[in-house]
């Protein structure tokens, strides 16, 4: 939700009736205002905050602010909202000064969250429907068995390029949910092998029971195998415009849940954006990225971009455990032989190279453009990514490779 001063003022005035005398009722109301504006505040946090009130002289406004902020907020991104609400809520003689206009539109904020909530439910259903077909998590079983019509179902099959603004917003959130789900599945998959170079005393003892406590076999265990890394190279040139935004969102979801995902974008040159999409606020991050990167929506030079990658980044990032994912339609305006050489080079280093091409979905598509043809022999997998279902397939494939 966009947080504007009016928004905040309305939220504050909504709860003005529950504000009473004394700090505690006010504090509770303050917590509820934050909640309405989309910040997660738990009751225990509010209680702790009230507990700490006596420890600080709340006449000192900045100390009071620090007190509430450290207790109620737990991520930096929420600081600005908090500060706006704080200034609006805790201003002296606040009630009289709320302008009349804001009271008139009181209805809107209550309507909005309800609508949003509904949206979310639909999405979760959509996600569980797309993601859970094979291994259905228990909690989703019920939703599953009831076949209901949902507009999201259609969205799952619709090509990204045909989507309007509204749809794309809905789908962006679905993508994030899918990515998160896949990523958590991946990270739970690692298990200790019971063969290896460290003696596992717990198991040795356990095993010795069958020989009456005499230790005959030593049970070993391996160090936890280091997780496979994923490097994503995403084409953001003009021809990929309608796809790349979703793909970056997908990457973001993966990266935030998994360890060791590196993300790059390229068009005519290559940029590393891992650090840029590490924030919670992906929409802002995307704007920042498209603003700071040269050649966004411009032409493509895959060969040269790969060359930069191989020279500057691959030596430290790509090992025999790394899966490199390239997302591009393969329309290349550069030197094809260069591209081929670089693919060869990359192939030597990486465990797997996956190429995702949104055009692959169209029936009459054949990888005719020279760039794509040059790259083809070096690929382990050639998949399409054009709609939500294909992202799920991709997620599964990554899951198998990475687990």
């Amino acid at each position: 939700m966009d947080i504007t001063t009016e928004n905040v003022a309305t939220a504050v005035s909504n709860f003005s009736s529950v504000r009473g005398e004394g700090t505690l009722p006010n504090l509770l109301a303050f917590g509820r205002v934050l909640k309405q504006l989309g910040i997660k505040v738990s009751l225990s946090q509010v209680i702790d905050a009230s507990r700490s009130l006596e420890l600080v002289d709340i006449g000192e406004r900045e100390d009071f602010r620090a007190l509430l902020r450290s207790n109620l907020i737990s991520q930096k991104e929420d600081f600005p909202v908090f500060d706006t609400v704080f200034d609006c809520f805790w201003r002296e003689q606040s009630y009289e000064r709320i302008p009349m206009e804001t009271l008139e539109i009181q209805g809107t904020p209550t309507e909005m969250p309800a609508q949003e909530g509904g949206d979310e439910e639909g999405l979760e259903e959509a996600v569980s429907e797309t993601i859970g077909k094979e291994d259905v998590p228990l909690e989703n079983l019920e939703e599953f068995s009831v076949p209901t019509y949902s507009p999201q179902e259609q969205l799952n099959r619709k090509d990204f390029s045909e989507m309007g603004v509204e749809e794309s917003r809905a789908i962006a959130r679905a993508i994030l949910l899918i990515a998160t789900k896949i990523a958590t599945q991946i990270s739970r998959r690692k298990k200790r092998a019971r063969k290896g170079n460290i003696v596992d005393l717990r198991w040795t003892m356990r095993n010795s029971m069958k020989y009456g406590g005499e230790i005959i076999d030593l049970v070993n265990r391996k160090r936890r195998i280091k997780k496979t890394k994923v490097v994503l190279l995403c084409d953001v040139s003009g021809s990929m415009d309608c796809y790349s935004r979703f793909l970056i969102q997908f990457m973001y979801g993966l990266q935030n849940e998994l360890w060791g995902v590196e993300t790059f974008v390229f068009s005519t040159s290559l940029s590393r954006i891992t650090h840029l999409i590490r924030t919670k606020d992906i929409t802002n991050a995307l704007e920042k990225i498209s603003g700071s990167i040269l050649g966004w929506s411009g032409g493509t030079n895959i060969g040269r971009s790969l060359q930069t990658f191989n020279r500057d980044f691959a030596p430290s990032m790509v090992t025999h455990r790394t899966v490199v994912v390239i997302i591009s339609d393969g329309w290349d305006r550069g030197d094809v032989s260069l591209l081929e050489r670089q693919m060869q080079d990359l192939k030597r280093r990486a465990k797997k190279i996956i190429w995702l091409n949104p055009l692959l979905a169209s029936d009459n598509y054949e990888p005719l453009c020279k760039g794509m043809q040059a790259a083809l022999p070096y690929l382990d997998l050639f998949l399409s990514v054009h709609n939500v279902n294909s992202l799920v397939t991709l997620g599964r494939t990554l899951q198998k490779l990475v687990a």
Partner: protein
Amino acid sequence: MSEAKVNPTELTIEQVQEILRSERYICDRSLATVVYLSLVMGKPLLLEGEAGVGKTEIAKVLSKVLGAKLIRLQCYEGLDANTALYEWNYPKQMLRIKLEEVEHGDREAVETEIFTQNYLIKRPLLEAIQSDGATPPVLLIDEIDRADMEFEAFLLEVLSDFQITIPEIGTISARHRPYVFLTSNRTREIHDALKRRCLYHWIEYPTFEKEYEIITTKFPEVEAVMAQQICAFMQRVRQMNFYKRPGVAETLDWASALIALNRKGLDDKTVVETMGCVFKYREDLHHLKEQVEGKQLNLEALLRVSPELVS
């Protein structure tokens, strides 16, 4: 050393700021307030911020000024309960059983005995809970974002109730609540359940004045002009697009290198020569060099101390 220098529960915000300063840790009022609250309320404090802004340092300094033992748990991928909480001392247990077999001792007695505290290896979290010094220890859980999600679950019991449950022995509760500090570099999000149990503070990069104060406090011998130049450079560079923006740690590294080189002031050449202290990534060094050579970047302008830096 171990006798309590100050009683943390009787401090005020100003005193917190002061005792930290006495150990050369400069912090602003909001951080001091949060640290104070954490000490008095006995609630863990989660510190986030860019690398090198002094997240870990504050726990170290506090343990020093409080005269408390510092117990540090460095998190890493794959960190598990056995390395963080406790582990049974299997070899010792086995020896004991063997001995008892030879001497034909009482089997049941042995069984109960080998699962007592004598056969327990304390790892940092248990150590912090069981510590019985005069002052509660400072428990630093460093870079929690590097540990796996499962590990956060272990922490929940420890950080909300300050107790550890060992099936064979029972629940061990803390005699003194340790002062707990968690740091995170945000390579991934920490679970909400854990965050809720902590106070939260984001440490910003220092302002020009604060950074100047940090340098001059750490290195009283530094020339004022050079300290200002360093701060000016750092403030501006942090606004620019580098992969890894330099933190305070880098500032101090650089200052100490320049002092060791006997420099009294900075010029283009010195900056380029010592840039390895500030940027730790090849891409960043390369980027800077390119910009300087291409005249897109004027080092002199970066070093100039001008009023817009001073807030």
